[in-house]
């Protein structure tokens, strides 16, 4: 086995694993980043969603070999408990989590959506977020959180502009 190197949340990581290992297992077991969750293991629920380069990716069905040399972001990379990022803050403000198991994936998909489409329509939000499932049924709060996150991000862009 050869070491595989890629960037995780801004730091280069090198792991010595079978290249077919799902990225999710590497993140959780080797790098101790437990934000992304194992849900179905078949790419059907979205609990394992992380961002690779600029897109939301289902890490349970993405072999680590595909991300070598690329940039991976997990929910841990968006902020800390005492300093949450805008999307995390919006989910807190809207109390969008019930059991919380799906939320890290929801936050990452919302983050990727808003980076690509800063001001999405409700249809665009629904269509994109439909890939991630929530079994508690907090979808309406999640949708509100994504809308709130869009305005928080827009505000932070405005305040950081020269």
């Amino acid at each position, binding site marked *: 086995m050869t070491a595989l190197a890629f960037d995780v949340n801004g730091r280069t990581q090198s792991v010595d694993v079978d*290249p*077919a290992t799902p990225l999710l297992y590497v993140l959780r077991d080797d790098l101790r980043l437990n934000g992304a969750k194992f849900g179905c293991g*078949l*790419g*059907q629920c979205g609990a394992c969603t992380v961002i*690779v*380069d*600029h*897109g*939301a*990716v*289902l890490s349970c*069905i*993405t*072999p680590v*070999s*595909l*991300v070598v040399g*690329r940039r991976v972001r997990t929910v841990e990379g968006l902020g800390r408990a005492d300093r949450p990022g805008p999307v995390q803050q919006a989910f807190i403000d809207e109390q969008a989590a019930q059991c919380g198991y799906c939320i890290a994936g929801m936050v990452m998909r919302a983050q*990727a959506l808003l980076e690509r489409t800063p001001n999405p329509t409700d*249809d665009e939000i*629904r269509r994109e977020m439909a*890939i991630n499932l929530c079994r508690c049924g907090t979808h309406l709060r999640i949708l509100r959180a994504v809308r709130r996150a869009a305005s928080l991000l827009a505000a932070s862009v405005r305040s950081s502009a020269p």
Partner: protein
Amino acid sequence: MSSAAPRRGPAPWLRASRVLVVLVALALGALALAWRPVIDPVDPPAASAFAPELVRRGAQLAGVGNCAACHTRPEGPSLAGGVALSTPFGVVYGTNITPEPETGIGRWSEAAFVRAMRRGVDREGRHLYPAFPYDHFVRTADEDLHALYAYLMTRDAVRAPAPENRLLFPLGFRPLIAGWKLLFLDTEPLAPNPRSSAEWNRGAYLVQSLGHCSSCHSPREVLGNEDRVRYLDGGDAEGWTVPALNVKSPSPLPWNVEQLVSYLRTGIARDHAIAGGPMQGVVAGLATASAADVLAIAVYIDSTLGSPTPSRQDLAKASRARASQPTLPPAVGPGDATLALGSNVYAHACAACHDAGRGPSSSSALQLPLAVAVHDPDPRSLIRIVLGGIRPIDANAGRWMPAFGDALTDEQLVALLAYLRRAAAGAPPWPDVAARVREVRTEPPA
């Protein structure tokens, strides 16, 4: 000595005015040819005016015709229009065909509806664009149009004006469509084939009328008309490669009636394909059609596919042999770095579902040596499936494949396609795969 004066024609002003008169006469003549009368508005008929059995039959036929594909926006109100259809001539919007009196067809008599279906003219006498496939609907039988009218007039009325079409100049001028019809609208009724079964004849009728299958499954010519000579030779729809349904079918295994019925009603044909792209809407419609009609369509399409030639039989044998292996063969040894990369991408990312014999596997995914998409004449459909996955349309059950668009780099995807073309299809490489990938990646979202 003759001193004849040079012959003098009419004065230039007179000549010009004669030309003008001729042009005006021609234009008036053309407009007269294009002119269609208004059909008087009616009061929207009450839903109770239609027998429930007739309405039910109309609903099944609307499933065959897939009206919703163009007349129901995703997540929009049923049949209220607004679907944007991109054509080489601009964008045409599907109209509101609910019985709403002002923005829908509530004031259309049955005669107005029949004229629209068969001649492409709306109640007010305006020519309709042939994005509305009246070149097929013209052959719809009276009793089927009667049932469809009953179905449409009993839907919920929704107030929704259609957006303005955005067409290339001068196509916004509707009388021009009369010229198109003169060339391409064949009003000759279908002649039944007395040597074939009633079921076959029913299928032939549905495919060539309401089903309008060849709208996508035949190539189109420069004026947007179907190429009648190359009937069911395959075409394209919304950027997907649409396979041929005749002897040119790319399917490695010959289709049979049972697999066709399964595909048409559920989108799942175990030995051929899972419906993706625009075909998903067709399947959603056919799932609500009558089982007898879908069987008839399958019987007819099975006949257009023809009996397999010896070379097709060889392909089928080779494909079955490939599919019987526990895994696709890896690209080993020195040689092509692209194939080696593609082989790894397949083994790590795809095989868990698509190979039955490689460790834990749901083994419910299509076996790729049998998949029509890897045998298609070009890679566009396969690219779209890998990038976007297969996602059943809302409120429909169906097979799900996750999207790999953001997981794969262009280099990885191109390598995967090259590998699948060789290892799964055993076919020569597609040309310009990288360019096709870039095209799909950079197109604006729908």
